[in-house]
């Protein structure tokens, strides 16, 4: 980066011109005279998304303020103080008796520092940086880290799924005792299900983890989530692809969710990840993993794992709404889409007006699968005529597969074959609980506040 570019630091237009006029720059310690009074502090970089009519000053007290350029009458430079961000880095202690865990990074933040220009958070990632931020990790395992990519979770896609699956395979082959994958939370459940299909019967735990409240805050869930995930990867007997995130908003326990049954259910709550239509695999605390069930794949000593890195990108997930017009489906077909997952209403329904479009799609060789937008419950297309009509037209129900999971699985199935019968066989054969034979009574728990007995319960149990 040239000096000229560096000098901008988010300043442009009038503000940049003003800095230059007075011969000062970002990190200058200045006294500024304005029509609103005198201000003294250090000029900070400014977010490039903010306006060009203010400059940002850090006062001695640590506060930041903005000064309107128009009000400035003089700026005197008194010195320079440049910030150097550094997560305290210490050598991660290694001891032979501890299990080895690899952390694969995709771009989620675990420990972090701030980026002035964007106001964004820069992750700490090397074992040394992580040890500096979360020293407890050294009590759990010997850690190695590998940064695969640095993308926001919404930018994760098929190519990344494939790279990640191969990396997991390589780590397993290399002999690690567990794998943790750091990931942004928004699409963590998409990636989790992709990995569940692409990495079959791994001999060790494969644990996805992130943080819901940014790791630059003291109350962040990041450090504990990481501790829980590392504990799971290092010690758990459950050799499956899992998501490990806070079970409640309290710092009490994490939950281990199967990669194919988990979904992000709140935009900001710490306990946003829930197992849908079933109970989670286990709870995890600093003390260890406590399984809730016994029907999971056990940890093994061998290094066998099935890596199936396939994905067809021309597929879509259609969230049905009343008054949907047939051209929505037509345009997918016209654009060469090979598969469509519909999240239908109720038991798996759409309106009659799109039937012709469905027929056109099926006859064009597009695979159409039905899921439910209620999230909980099975698709039951025999109950009403609508369902029977749709099946007759070639729409295939997917039992209780979650819409996002069905989307990922269809991409994965079409990535392997164009034979739609074979695709159907893959889709409807459960690989890792994406379809379950039965829904337990406690697989659906959305309590409603206000009910006296619920309120009584809430008073006794930490949220």
């Amino acid at each position: 980066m040239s000096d000229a570019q560096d000098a901008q630091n988010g300043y442009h237009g009038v503000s940049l011109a003003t800095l230059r006029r007075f011969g000062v720059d970002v990190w200058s310690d200045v006294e500024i005279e304005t029509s609103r009074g005198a201000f003294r502090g250090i000029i900070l970089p400014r977010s490039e998304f903010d306006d060009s009519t203010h400059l940002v000053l850090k006062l001695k007290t640590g506060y930041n303020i903005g000064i309107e350029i128009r009000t400035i009458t003089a700026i005197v430079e008194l010195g320079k103080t440049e910030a150097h961000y550094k997560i305290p880095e210490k050598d991660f202690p290694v001891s032979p008796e501890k299990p080895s865990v690899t952390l694969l990074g995709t771009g989620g933040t675990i420990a972090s520092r701030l980026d002035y220009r964007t106001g964004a958070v820069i992750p700490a990632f090397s074992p040394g940086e992580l040890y500096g931020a979360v020293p407890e990790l050294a009590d759990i395992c010997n850690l190695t880290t590998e940064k695969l990519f640095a993308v926001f979770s919404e930018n994760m896609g098929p190519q990344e799924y494939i790279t990640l699956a191969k990396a997991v395979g390589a780590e397993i082959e290399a002999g690690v005792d567990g794998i943790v994958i750091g990931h942004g939370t928004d699409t963590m459940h998409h990636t989790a299900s992709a990995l569940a299909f692409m990495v079959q019967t791994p001999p060790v735990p494969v644990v996805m983890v992130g943080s819901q409240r940014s790791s630059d805050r003291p109350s962040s869930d990041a450090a504990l989530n990481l501790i829980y995930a590392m504990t799971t990867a290092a010690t758990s007997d459950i050799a499956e692809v899992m998501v490990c995130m806070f079970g409640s908003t309290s710092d009490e326990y994490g939950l281990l969710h199967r990669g194919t049954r988990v979904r992000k259910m709140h935009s900001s709550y710490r306990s946003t990840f829930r197992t849908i239509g079933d109970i989670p695999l286990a709870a995890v605390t600093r003390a260890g993993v406590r399984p809730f069930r016994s029907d999971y794949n056990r940890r093994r000593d061998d290094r066998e794992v099935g890596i199936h890195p396939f994905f067809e990108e021309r597929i879509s997930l259609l969230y049905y709404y009343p008054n949907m017009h047939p051209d929505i489906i037509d345009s997918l077909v016209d654009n060469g889409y090979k598969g469509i997952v519909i999240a239908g209403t109720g038991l798996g329904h759409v309106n009659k007006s799109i039937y012709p479009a469905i027929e056109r799609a099926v006859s064009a060789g597009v695979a159409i699968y039905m899921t439910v937008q209620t999230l909980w419950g099975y698709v039951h297309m025999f109950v009403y005529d609508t369902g029977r009509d749709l099946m007759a037209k070639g729409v295939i129900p997917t039992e209780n597969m979650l819409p996002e999971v069905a989307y990922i699985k269809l991409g994965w199935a079409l990535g392997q074959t164009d034979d739609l019968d074979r695709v159907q066989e893959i889709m409807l054969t459960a690989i890792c609980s994406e379809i379950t034979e039965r829904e337990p009574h406690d697989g659906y728990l959305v309590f409603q506040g206000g009910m006296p007995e619920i309120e009584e319960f809430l008073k006794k149990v930490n949220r």
Partner: protein
Amino acid sequence: MSNTAPSSNYEQTRRLVRYVSREEATAETYRQMGFRCGLEVHQQLKTKKKLFCRCPAGIYQDGDDYDTQLIRHMRPTLSEFGEYDGTALMEFRTKKTITYRIKRETACTYDIDDTPPFPLNREALTIAIEIALLLKTGIVGELHITRKQYLDGSIPGGFQRTAIVGIAGEIPLSNKTVRIIQLSIEEDSCREVSDIGHERIYTTGRLGMPLIETVTDPDMLNPDEAAEAAHHIRYLGRSTGKVNVGIGAARQDVNVSIAGGTRVEIKGVQHIRSIPELTHNEAFRQQALLKIRKQLSERINDPAEWKIQAVDIDRDDPESSKTLATIPSDHHAVAVNLPKFAGLLSFFTGPGRSFADEISDRLKVIACIEKPNMTHSEAMEQMSMMPVLSDDRWDRLQSLLASSPSEDAQLLLWGPPADIPTALETIEERCRWAFDGVPNETRKALPDGTTIFERVLPGPDRMYPDTDSAPISIAEEMIAQIRADLPMPIADCSKMLATWGVPDDIHLYILRRNLFPPLRTMIEENKLDPVFAASLLGHTVRNIAGDREVDSERILWTVGSVGDRDLQADLLRILLPLSLTRPTASFDHLLAAARYSPCTEAALLARIPALCAQFNGKRSDARKLRNWLMGRLRTDALGNIALSHLSQKVEEALQ
């Protein structure tokens, strides 16, 4: 040194520090010490909603009244400059489990940091700018929401959102001008319910309420000036009529230092009246710590070499079990030798407190060991909660530690085994700081005017930008609009009260309760006599309202109604208390309750001859007779005839 009994050492060191009581101290006492004091005055703003969410403001809960609880732990994070804050690290060491008690009505998912902030409450910002203008500060061009880390758990997110509104202002005191560093707007913290061992409990009703914080330079040179400045800032805020009053709605942090000392912050002082005693004692505590430093520098050449020695006490040893008889059976006990510290543990640091308390306070706060958590070789019966061990016990511990009885001091600490390592670090750390004088810290005010350690004083490293909110531009037009409606400055109000001849004893009440605006209306618009009007507020109203908030609107309505009906203002002495205690009653209802009935002057005076006939006293005592007549006529005269006029008429009738 050790030959001196602890209590006489305490007295000697008290004299060495030249301690005098607050009553004995003069301005010269503080000048000699180099006393300086600055204030941080917090006032809650009277808004409908909280600062960053839409929860209702100003509804509080009792500690046992909650719908559900949640638990957090706080972990320090890096500042923009890549540093961990000192306080942050200390509080991480304390490993507290924080429980929040929340109620559905007063806290939402923002309050528990499970939802990002909503846009800043504009009503609050407008009030803050108004007060910033009254403080004559320069208003910032852009408000930058900053996160201030609080790892004590008082805010569930672990940081308080705060922003500077104005910089560099001033307030006038009676004999000087005090500089204002800044005014900020911020969210209030949780209220602590309890803090025992490793668990602290908070309620969240108050959390998120909009607050302003006014910070002064350390311009106050004695405790009285500090109290005067605190009053001024409080009244200034109240003069807008837009800040909350009442218990907990205003709190002061008081910074004190003396020459050679350090800025120490006394947090959360609820009453301004306690500021003088607190600052006085803190100044002498610092003076004492400086004397201790001097003694240590004479005894110890190389502080870097100084170390404590510690020996675990074996409970199974019958000799030891005697020593530990009063200590809980699940606690470990450790004997600690402090080389060359003889005479320092009983060194006077304040009324009823000695240097040993500095250590014990920190064991409670940092190592989370409840008191009593230690005793020492210079413990005194009459002081603190520390048990006193007999000399032979100490002889034994001294031999265990191989310490020098004449030069060293010993302490015995106990607590849950897991907390002992932190406790030993804490002891060594505090003793080492004695070589430097006064540690940087915040202290909590106690009712007796002394303070106890609360935490290490936080620095600017705990501030970092709030990544969840964009800067808010404050336009010239907005400032101009607010400036146009500013209330009269407090100093001008005081001058005007004096011009009106309002007695001094009423001044403070008028300003404290923000009754200057209604008083001015009563005088200028309702044409009441200034002294009478002031007395109505300062005596009649105050008798009813005590120190509660007063409904100015209701007062002005009552005064106006009296004028509208052409009634005499004397009647307000009876009407105002009725009106304020029956806030919804109609004016006619109030007149009835006051037993008012219309009566002409002539009709009243016509009763005089008949009344005179009933008088039992000596007719010759004219003054007695007149007073007796006035007493008889007063009730019926009120509202109809001015009492001064009636008195004159009675006088005339008798002659």
